[in-house]
């Protein structure tokens, strides 16, 4: 109970009730994020949360930190500017699957590639909730949306694999049905130096659930819970067994990958030392990327010992 009161300090309670539908998972993820802020003892003035447009991004209107409700798809570009202008800020982006992976897909891969020290929490409800349940790039093929009344014919994005391939140095997935592990992932993501991507799988019973089984929020939560599986367990499974599974936990982590803002600070140092006109340094071969912790669709790059740190209790843990 006291924890609830504690996170109230980070909420504009006068702006409540929120606009989210009954059964929506967005409040769960927002709560998990605020508990992470509380636990990490982040300074209010130096914590900036940027949202785009959509249900998920509306969270910034209730959060009492520095908040920017930006334009559709561009939250990461805003956040990049903010982080570069004020490297001392903790910058977090709250986005959705439409905002972050469709209209904002280009900014998403480039923010990953730069490995700039921003934490991106993507609320994945597999649909455009605010505009009435249209097809999103994470909707499973065959699912129905108002713009796919006969079922979606598009393959869906695995956003964690996309983030990792694009260069993010911390990639994790959690589900709204397992709050504590999600909260821990968010906390670890914020602490990680570099681009952290956390996909939070949330139910949208109103726009997604009413067209796609299982209907109803309890059934939807139970379903994601039943389908979720830890990275540790996933590492021992075949691609066939992993079909339809939601792999949760830290999927990729590399603490040594060069971070963009620090690299830029080094450039400033060089330029100020008068090195701008010096011949460019001989090209360094790029360091090989750290292997994946698990490769759900491929044989694991490293087995056993690599995956144990990220194994999170999934069912009934807390």
């Amino acid at each position, binding site marked *: 109970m006291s924890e609830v009161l504690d996170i109230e300090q980070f909420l*504009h309670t006068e702006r409540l009730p929120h606009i989210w539908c009954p059964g929506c998972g967005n409040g769960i993820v927002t709560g998990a994020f605020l508990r992470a802020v509380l636990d990490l003892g982040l300074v209010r003035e130096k914590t900036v949360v940027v949202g785009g447009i959509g249900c998920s991004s509306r969270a910034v209107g209730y959060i009492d930190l520095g908040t920017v409700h930006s334009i559709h798809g561009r939250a990461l570009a805003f956040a*990049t*500017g903010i982080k570069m*202008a004020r490297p001392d*800020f903790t910058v977090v982006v709250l986005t959705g699957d439409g905002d972050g992976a469709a209209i904002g897909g280009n900014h998403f891969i480039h923010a990953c590639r730069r490995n700039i020290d921003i934490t991106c929490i993507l609320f994945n409800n597999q649909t455009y909730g605010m505009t009435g349940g249209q097809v999103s790039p994470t909707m499973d093929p065959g699912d129905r949306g108002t713009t796919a009344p006969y079922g979606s014919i598009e393959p869906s994005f695995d956003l964690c694999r996309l983030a990792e391939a694009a260069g993010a140095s911390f990639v994790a997935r959690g589900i709204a049905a397992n709050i504590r592990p999600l909260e821990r992932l968010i906390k670890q993501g914020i602490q990680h130096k570099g681009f952290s991507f956390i996909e939070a799988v949330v139910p949208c019973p109103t726009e997604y659930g009413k067209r796609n089984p299982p209907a109803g929020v309890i059934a939807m939560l139970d379903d994601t819970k039943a389908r979720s599986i830890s990275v540790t367990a996933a590492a021992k499974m075949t691609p066939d067994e992993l079909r339809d599974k939601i792999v949760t936990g830290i999927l990729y982590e590399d603490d040594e990958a060069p971070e963009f803002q620090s690299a830029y600070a080094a450039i400033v140092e060089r330029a100020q030392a008068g090195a701008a006109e010096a011949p460019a340094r001989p090209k360094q071969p790029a360091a090989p990327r750290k292997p994946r912790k698990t490769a759900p669709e491929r044989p694991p790059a490293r087995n056993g010992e690599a995956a144990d740190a990220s194994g999170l209790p999934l069912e009934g843990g807390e």
Partner: protein
Amino acid sequence: MERWHTHVLREKIDPSSMLIQGNRACALGALDAGVRFFAGYPITPSSEIMEAMAVELPKVGGVFLQMEDEIASICACIGGSLAGQLAMTATSGPGFSLMQEAIGYAIMVEAPLLIVDVMRAGPSTGRPTAPSQGDVMQARWGTHGDHPAVVLAASNVADMYRLTMAAVRFAQRFRTPVTLLADEVVGHMRESFAPELIDRYRLTSGDFDFSPSYIHPELVREVHPPHVLGSEAHPHVTGLIHDETGFPTNDPQKSEKFLRELYDKVGNHRDELCLYDVKNEGKGRVCIVAYGSCARSARAAWKLAEKEGLQVEVLHLYTLFPLPVEIIQKVARRVEFMLIPELNLGQYAREVRKMAENWTTVISMGKIDGTLITPREILDRVTELVGKYESV
């Protein structure tokens, strides 16, 4: 010869004989005005501004970002601006089109910002290295909704320096994005110029004291309290219609009040924002109203006309928006014709006509073949007009 690095220009070359490219003069002006944040995406014919910033900004501890596209560039600039940096981007027509949604956001959240658009012939890819003034109305009405716009136009290298500084000052004082238009030829041409000689280029209503701080000490009164991230107020910033608190409102009265104030903060200060230069004041029956590269041709046409025994007035506009209503109507009252040469099909002539048609005949002289309008072409048109009049 111009050297690549602007600092070399400044330190090693006699300032009275500095040869510099328009785009680099713009970068120099921005740095001297206190711009310490640049995010952009390469595009002809504006890339030299970005390249100069890439060299200079790290030296002064500023931020330089090459983003993945123009949308990201302007969004990063708005982010930088909200976090308290004087931010700037530079682009050309196609990139400027991509930026339009975000420009509306910057206007809405009152984020000071400088956007330089070095115009090339359009539409679409058009002719990237041909000069044009086709973005005039885009600069005014490119983003959706009713909004104010501050748009300046540079006609030579000196303008690229001093109007950049003026634009930064306006952006700070009015807390709004300011667009500086240049045509390709202004961005790419090289002229001898030195910042130290700026006094020689003073404008009618301009003195360019600028505040080096992000929040101008003399904000115009209509500006809402600035929301700066990192301040104790830990603000909420949104592109939704909002009130002074920064939070969205659906209240009709508050919505209208907010939008009216956005409009008024620019419209009520035309006397300060409208920069222009009148040459050969009150002489002749024709006034050539021009901006950008055409203004140079107009000035040359006036000299040429004088030699040939004809008097022509020239109104050189440095500010296109807000509309310089007062000076245009003043001149319109005393001339029989207003001739508007421009590198488009009369975009600004239509604006002038709205203001002046009660008093004078407004003639558009548009050119869209990707070449400049020469002084002789202007003078021929003037002679034709005057002759026409005399034969009536």
